[in-house]
């Protein structure tokens, strides 16, 4: 019988009181919340993908007639906003949720109800943002919403910008709630013996990302508040008539925006840092350096923001300083690349799909990094900025980088979550088709940019020399779509019919592979005591962990087990876990109503009268009910 020493103490044992769909709606279990995040993120990824296909259809040939100019502006705005805030970030958070507690030997995150709250706020924020399509028009001023194009005098035909401002503020709350949770969890809830320098790299990068999130989002929030106040309450933050500086928006936005791109890439880098050693059967080369370079990137991220503003007229001194800091930040990034290559060197390579996507990440992200260094030089940037060269760069790092990394994570951890393997053949088809489609789509955009094609134009005339690569890019985009269908088919059929995975299908190195697939709701029957980096590998093989079996695999106490008796014994463990709760959902709904209610009854093109609609009032009251219920609920000490 496992002791309750390391279990979360409670005033009474947790009844499993909800079944079926309700157990998902009231869950506070990090594994379930992670799945919710992942599925929701994939749905938004598909929506963003359809927006991309519409864009590419419009640009396939000169003088395209697929969508109107106004619709085109909404499409590229929503494509960017959806992919960044509703697909890539939540997919990363899905992995934070599912994987980090398992990697650090914890039973759950530090604040399970806050975790549920952040998911529901994300869902409601994403729905609110996309509902703009139904309520007069989606936002249309780009994902970065430059003032004062977003101000009422220039943007009042629809309320799209109001949906954007409020939707992003709601999503910001979700991101920050999650970040606080993971920060406290990683700092404060690690298993005994799991020092920082023994943590898996994915957990390391989650920690750095969490710090970036909690410090970057408040700056965005302030910018959004100022824009919202201008549009809803008649203030003058970005009103040049009153003497304001539209450039202030750019500074505030990019002070958030640059750390944001590291928020987008670091989790995927963490995944790659975990996948490469497993599929090379070697420890990560230069572990301390890889960890510290992630931390260095986190600090340096704050010093480069104005490289997004080289053409804004800041002057040669500012341009030079930010050029230098931007080139400097390539150093820790490059260091990671070299350490990854050294990890592969001399390893016993296992060419499974997770590794393919990790290798694809390294290659594609390096290309994106090189175009980034080209953009870091202001004289070059003055020609490249606002052309398709930047579109190429950002997609090589965010798609070739982040999305490939996230796919590596999906194929890698799918067996742990579902207990089944994804089909390897379909995985390879997905990878190669996506790699080819991706490069067809975005490779030629380097040339388009160099040939002067601007961004965010809804069509182009013939005879500019742009026809060929635009056509190729559209073919590539539909190839990506086809590869995505292959992935979806593989995913759903594997969930039902995939080969049973067992606890440790990849001969893994870290603690998540030491427990059953899928894990029991308490994760670890006994909280492990950690003695080394790659603790599960060391437990199995001993010593330095260089992949040669020194002894027969030794089962970790309370971890992997293969006997019927073992299963039955562990199923009767009465480890108390946090109760399910509906207050996070109520509080999230209250927040969404309170802020979304500001959109109700907006008059066209002018500042509305105070007070806000009754929807907001109901929202605030609901938020209070949710918050008080949450605070007073008889749950456990944390």
């Amino acid at each position: 019988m496992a002791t309750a020493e390391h279990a979360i103490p409670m005033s009474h044992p947790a009844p499993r009181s909800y079944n079926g769909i309700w157990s998902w709606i009231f869950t506070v279990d990090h594994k379930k919340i992670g799945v919710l995040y992942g599925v929701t993120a994939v749905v938004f990824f598909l929506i963003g993908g359809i927006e991309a296909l519409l864009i590419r259809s419009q640009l396939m040939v000169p003088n395209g007639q697929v969508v109107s100019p106004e619709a085109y502006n909404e499409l590229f705005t929503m494509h960017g906003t959806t992919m960044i805030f509703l697909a890539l970030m939540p997919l990363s958070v899905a992995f934070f949720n599912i994987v980090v507690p398992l990697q650090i030997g914890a039973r759950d995150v530090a604040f399970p109800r806050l975790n549920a709250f952040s998911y529901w706020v994300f869902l409601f924020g994403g729905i609110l943002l996309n509902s703009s399509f139904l309520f007069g028009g989606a936002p249309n001023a780009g994902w970065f919403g430059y003032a004062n194009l977003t101000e009422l005098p220039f943007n009042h035909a629809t309320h799209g910008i109001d949906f954007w401002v409020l939707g992003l503020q709601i999503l910001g709350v979700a991101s920050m709630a999650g970040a606080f949770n993971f920060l406290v969890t990683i700092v404060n809830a690690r298993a005994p013996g799991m020092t920082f320098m023994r943590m898996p790299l994915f957990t390391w990068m989650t920690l750095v990302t969490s710090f970036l999130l909690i410090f970057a989002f408040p700056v965005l929030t302030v910018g959004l508040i100022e824009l919202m106040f201008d549009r809803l309450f008649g203030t003058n933050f970005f009103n040049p008539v009153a003497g304001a500086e539209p450039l202030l928006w750019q500074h505030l936005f990019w002070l958030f925006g640059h750390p944001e791109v590291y928020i987008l890439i670091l989790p995927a880098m963490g995944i790659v840092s975990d996948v490469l050693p497993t599929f090379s059967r070697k420890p990560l080369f230069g572990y301390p350096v890889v960890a510290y370079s992630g931390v260095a990137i986190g600090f340096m991220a704050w010093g480069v923001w104005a490289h997004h503003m080289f053409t804004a007229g800041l002057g040669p001194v500012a341009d030079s300083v930010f050029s230098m800091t931007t080139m400097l930040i390539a150093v820790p990034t490059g260091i990671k690349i070299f350490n990854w290559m050294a990890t592969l060197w001399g390893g016993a390579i296992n060419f499974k799909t997770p590794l393919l996507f990790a290798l694809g990440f390294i290659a594609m992200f390096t290309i994106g990094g090189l175009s980034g260094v080209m953009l870091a030089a202001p004289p070059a940037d003055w020609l490249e900025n606002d052309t398709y060269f930047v579109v190429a760069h950002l997609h090589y790092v965010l798609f070739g980088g982040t999305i490939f990394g996230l796919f590596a994570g999906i194929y890698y951890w799918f067996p742990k979550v579902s207990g089944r393997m994804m089909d390897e053949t379909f995985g390879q088809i997905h990878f190669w088709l996506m790699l080819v489609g991706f490069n067809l789509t975005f490779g030629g955009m380097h040339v388009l940019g160099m040939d002067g094609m601007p961004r965010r134009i809804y069509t182009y005339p013939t005879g500019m020399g742009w026809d060929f690569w635009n056509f190729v890019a559209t073919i590539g985009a539909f190839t990506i779509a086809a590869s995505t269908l292959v992935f979806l088919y593989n995913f759903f059929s594997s969930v039902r019919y995939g080969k049973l995975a067992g606890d440790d299908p990849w001969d893994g190195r870290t603690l998540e592979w030491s427990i059953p697939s899928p894990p029991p709701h308490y994760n670890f029957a006994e909280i492990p005591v950690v003695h080394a980096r790659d603790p599960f590998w060391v437990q199995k093989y001993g010593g330095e962990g260089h992949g040669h079996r020194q002894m027969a695999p030794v089962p970790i106490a309370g971890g992997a087990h293969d006997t019927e008796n073992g299963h039955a014994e562990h199923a009767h463990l009465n480890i108390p876990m946090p109760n399910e709760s509906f207050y996070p959902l109520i509080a999230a709904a209250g927040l969404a109503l309170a802020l979304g209610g500001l959109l109700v009854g907006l008059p066209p093109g002018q500042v509305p009268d105070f007070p806000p609609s009754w929807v907001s009032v109901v929202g605030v009251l609901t938020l209070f009910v949710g918050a008080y219920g949450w605070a007073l609920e008889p749950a456990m000490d944390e």
Partner: protein
Amino acid sequence: MAEASLAAGHSAAEHATTTGLNHRKVLMWAFLGSECLFFGSLISTYVVYRDHSLVGPFPQDTFDIPYTSVSSFVLLMSSLTMVLALAAIQRANVKEMRVWLAATALLGTVFVGGQVYEFTDFVRHGLTLSTNLFGTTFFVLTGFHGAHVTIGVILLTSLFLNSLRGKIKKEDSLTVELAGLYWHFVDVVWVVIFTVVYLLPY
């Protein structure tokens, strides 16, 4: 393990954490760190737009420094009463804690009330959200600060009422400590705002 927890002044039902600190304490410090960025951005906006207003009223015509000094003093004293409330519950004196909690909430309310009076006075003299950059940046910055103080007052009142129901004991002193951290932070932010907005010469 339980002994270590008690020695650290935590409730006996708590489990060991990696740093020895309670999860909620780490959370509160992380939250206050992010709030520094929030108020920092609002204060920066104010500073960037100082001297940029094209029309009046201007700060030097508007501020009543003696008045605001008094309300600042009131808020500062509320931090003292907050410390006394925490000290009381750490000595297991729930009644005394209640007195000092009520005092803190009362002083906070006086501060907010003073701000409401001050702002309505400014409006009567022609300074609104939309008059000029000064009105915009001043009211939004101090308004969000006032909202934070108000939330703090609600939090303190909730603690007060909860203690009447017998829910706050010496082992729950962490909750009072966390409320205190939030309250002191809001006070420090006011010190910065008072200095940067009211006192720095124009």
